[in-house]
C-alpha cells in the first residue's frame, strides 16, 4: 500500500498563500499527486483571502483557495512540533518533491529528524529575496517584488509614484517558475537518483520581466523610467480611450501595417510622405496622438477590436474581468471549468493551461477541505484511528 494515488510526481506542498500552491497546482494539472500540508485549525492563508460568495468569509469558500488547490489532497500537520515534523518526515520519505514558501531558511529550522531531507528529494523553496545573500532575511510581499525587481520603476507616470501591477503577478509567476524547475530536476532524479535544492526569489521573477530594460543599460547605459505625460501614447502602445471604453493599439504591429491602419481608421491623410517611415512617424507622434486619439473616441471598443482584427491589425479591447469571464472565445476553448465543491457548490473558474488533447481542463477533484485527507493519508503511514485521534487532541493534526 502506498499513500500515493497517481502515477505522476509525488509532491508535498508546505506553505501558505499563492506561490507554492500555484506551482504545485500546475504540477497536479499534469498528473502529480500533491499532498498539501496545512496548519491545524487555521489552514492556508488563502482560505481567508477571498473573494467569497456574497462577501461572507468562509475557509472552504475562498475563490483564491479553490482556484489554487484543485486536484490536491489536504492534511493538517503542526510541522513546528516534534511529532508533527516526524510525520512530515514520513511523508517525505517516499515523496519526489517538497515545494515550500515558509520563508528563507525556515525549512531548515523545523525539528525534522536527521535525514528527512534525503538525497533523492527535490526541495523547491520560494521566498521574497531567495535563500541566501545579504537581503535574504528581509520581509517581502507582492509590493516588494515589483519594487526590488524593477518593473514598478517603469510603470505609471513620471510625475507620480511608481505603480504596482494589479493583484499578485509575482507570486503566481514564482509558482510557474517553481513548477518548471521541479520538472527539470525530476529528469536528473529519474536518471541519476539525485534530488537537489531549488531556490526561487520573487525579486528575480520580476527582474526577468524587464530584461529589455536590463540589456538597454548593459549595452547603452540608458536607464529607462516611467513616461512623462508628454510621451506620445499611440507609438508607445498605451491604452487609448474609445467611445465607450479603451483600446490597445500595439504599435509593434500597427507600425508594420501603417497604411492599412490609417485606412481602417478612415484617415488617408496619415498615409502621406511625412508618415511613411518609423522615424518620420516618431517626429509626428504628437499629431498622430491627436488625429487617431480623436478617431478612436468616435467608435465603440468592440467595433475597433473585432473589425480591426479583420483588417489584420493588432488592436484589442481592454477587457474587464467580466468580459473575460463571458468571453465566447474562451468558452469555446473549454477554458472555464465548473469546480463542484462540497461546501462552496459549483464555482466557475479558469482551468488547466495550456489546452492539450491529452488532459481534461476540468480538475478531477475539487480543492480539499482543511485536513480532509488526514485519515486516508495517515492511515497509509501506519497510524491507527486511535493514534490519529490522539494527534488531533494534541493539536498536531
Amino acid at each position, binding site marked *: 500500500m502506498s499513500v500515493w494515488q497517481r502515477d505522476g510526481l509525488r509532491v508535498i506542498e508546505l506553505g501558505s498563500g499563492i506561490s507554492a500552491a500555484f506551482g504545485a497546482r500546475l504540477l497536479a494539472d499534469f498528473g502529480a499527486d500533491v499532498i498539501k500540508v496545512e496548519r491545524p485549525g487555521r489552514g492556508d492563508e488563502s482560505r481567508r483571502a477571498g473573494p467569497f460568495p456574497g462577501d461572507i468569509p468562509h475557509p472552504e469558500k475562498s475563490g483564491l483557495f479553490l482556484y489554487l488547490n484543485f486536484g490536491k489532497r489536504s492534511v493538517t500537520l503542526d510541522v513546528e512540533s516534534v511529532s508533527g515534523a516526524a510525520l512530515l518526515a514520513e511523508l517525505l520519505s517516499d515523496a519526489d518533491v517538497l515545494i515550500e514558501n515558509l520563508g528563507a531558511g525556515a525549512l531548515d529550522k523545523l525539528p525534522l529528524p536527521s535525514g528527512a531531507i534525503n538525497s533523492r528529494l527535490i526541495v523547491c523553496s520560494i521566498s521574497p529575496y531567495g535563500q541566501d545573500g545579504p537581503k535574504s532575511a528581509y520581509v517581502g510581499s507582492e509590493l516588494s517584488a515589483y519594487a526590488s525587481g524593477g518593473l514598478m520603476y517603469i510603470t505609471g507616470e513620471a510625475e507620480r509614484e511608481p505603480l504596482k501591477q494589479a493583484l499578485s503577478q509575482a507570486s503566481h509567476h514564482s509558482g510557474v517558475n517553481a513548477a518548471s524547475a521541479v520538472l527539470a530536476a525530476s529528469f536528473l532524479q529519474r536518471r541519476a537518483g539525485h534530488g537537489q535544492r531549488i531556490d526561487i526569489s520573487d525579486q528575480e521573477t520580476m527582474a526577468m*520581466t524587464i530584461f529589455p530594460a536590463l540589456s538597454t543599460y548593459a549595452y547603452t547605459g540608458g536607464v529607462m523610467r516611467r513616461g512623462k505625460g508628454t510621451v506620445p501614447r499611440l507609438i508607445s502602445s498605451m491604452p487609448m480611450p474609445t467611445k465607450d471604453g479603451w483600446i490597445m493599439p500595439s504599435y509593434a504591429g500597427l507600425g508594420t501595417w501603417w497604411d492599412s491602419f490609417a485606412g481602417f481608421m478612415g484617415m488617408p491623410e496619415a498615409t502621406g510622405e511625412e508618415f511613411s517611415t518609423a522615424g518620420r512617424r516618431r517626429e509626428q507622434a504628437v499629431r498622430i496622438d491627436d488625429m487617431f486619439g480623436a478617431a478612436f473616441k468616435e467608435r465603440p471598443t468592440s467595433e475597433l477590436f473585432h473589425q480591426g482584427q479583420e483588417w489584420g491589425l493588432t488592436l484589442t479591447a481592454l477587457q474587464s474581468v467580466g468580459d473575460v469571464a463571458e468571453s465566447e472565445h474562451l468558452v469555446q476553448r473549454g477554458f472555464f471549468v465548473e469546480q463542484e465543491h462540497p461546501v462552496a457548490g459549483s464555482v466557475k473558474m*479558469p482551468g488547466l493551461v495550456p489546452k492539450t488533447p491529452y488532459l481534461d481542463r476540468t480538475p478531477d477533484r475539487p480543492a480539499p477541505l482543511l485536513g480532509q485527507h488526514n485519515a486516508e493519508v495517515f492511515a497509509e503511514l501506519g497510524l491507527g484511528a486511535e493514534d490519529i485521534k490522539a494527534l488531533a487532541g494534541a493539536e498536531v493534526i
Partner: protein
Amino acid sequence: MSESALPLPLEGIRVLELGMVIVLPLAISPLAALGADVVKVESGSRPDQSRSGPQPENQPRADGFNLGGNFQTMNRGKRGITIDLTNPRGRELLLRLVAVSDVVAENFTSRVLHNMGLTYDRLREVNPRIILLSSNGFGHSGPWQDYKSYGPNIESVDGLMLLTGYLDGPPQRAGSGGLGVTYPDVAGANFGTFAVLAALERRERTGEGTWLDLSHYEAGVATIAEGILDYTMNGRVPPRTGNRHPSRAPQGVYPCDGLDRWIAISVHDDARFAALAGVLNLPWLATDARFRSLPDRRRNHDELDRLIADSTRACRADVLERALQHAGIEATMVQNSKDIFLDPQLKHRGFFQPVPPHHSAPEVGARPHPRAGWKMSLSAPAVKGRAPDFGEHTDEVLREYLSLGAEEIQQLEADGVIARTPRDGMVSREPIDAKESVASGRFLEVDADYRERLAEQFRE
C-alpha cells in the same frame, strides 16, 4: 554517479525552435541552459526581429544582427540554422529534422500553421513521440484563433490592464516607461517553459508526445483568478486599487531624497505600524484615533500617506530600507535597471551571468545577462555560449542530425532553402536616440560610465 559528473537534466533532448521576437525564444531559453540541444530555425526572409537591439554602445554595425542585447538574453546557448519554410523543399527538410527531435516549438497563428502543413497531426506522422508547443496570443481554436497580438494586446484582453492604475487615473500598461518592456511576453514565456517540461516529464511516464496549445490570453487570465472569481461569484468588476492592498495598511510607495527615489512600504498589523511610526519619528501616529486599527488606516489612507511621505522625503531610500527592515517592516527601495545591476543581493545570487564575447566583435566583451528564474544546487542553469549568428550552425546541424554531405547542403543553398545572411533590411538596427530619450523623460539618464561600473561589479 558522483555529483560532479552529473549531466545537465535535459542533456540529449532536442528542441527545434520555429519562433521569433520574444515569447517563444524566451520560453525555450531555459531549456538550453538546462542542457537541451536547442536549434533555432530562421530564414533569409524571416530572421528573428529581436536580433535588432539594443546594439553594443548604441553603435549600429553591419553584423549588428548578431549582437543585439535582447537577442543574447533570449538565445544564448542555442544553435542557429536557416530553412525557408515557405519553400516546399524547406518544409520537407524541416520534417526530416522533426523526425529526429523531441520538441518542436512554434508561434505561428492558426492560419499560417495550417497553410504550412505543420500541424500536430502532420508532425506526429513523422515522429509519434513529438511534443509540439504552439505558443500564440489566442490559441488554435475558438472564434479569435486568427487574431493578431503583441504583448500589450495580451495585457489588454486578459483583464490585467484595466485593473492596473492609480486610484484616480486611467488604466496603465505595466512596463510602459522608457522604450517599453512587454510584461505579458515574459509571463507567456514562463508558461511555455513549464508546458514543455511538463509534457516531457509526462512522456517519460507514458511514452506519449502531446500538443500544447498555449494561448497567452489564457496564461494571463490564469494569473488573475482572484479578479475573475469576484465576477463569477459576485458579479463584481473590481476597481483599480493603485498600490494599495485590501488587508494591509498603510501600503504605498513614498518619495525619498534624490532624483526619482522611492520606497515601497507595506504594513499588515498594528505592531508593525507602531514600529513604522517609531522609525519615521512619528510615534504619535500609532496612538492617533484615525490610524488605530487596520480598518481605521484603510479609511484614512490618503491622510496617512501624506504624513508618511512628509517624513520619508528627507530620507535616503537605501538607508530607510535597512532601518525599516531592521524593525521587521516590509520596506523596499524602488530599483531602476541600473540599481538592479548594482544590487548586492542579486550579485550574491549570481542573477547575472556573463555571455561570452563574440568571435567577430571581441571588443563587446562579456556582458551580464539575467539567468533563468531559479537557482539549482546540482543543475545550475549554465550559459553554454552566446546566441547563434544568423545561420551559424546550418551545416553542422544538417550533418549531425541528417548526415547530409557538402554537396547536398550546397544544393539546398542553390535552391534557396537555406540562407547565409538575412535579406537586406529585414532586421532594423536603428540606434536609440539617447538625447531625445533623456529630454522626453523616457530615460532617467544615459550613464556614461556603465561599462566601467559593470566591469567593477562583475569582476571575478
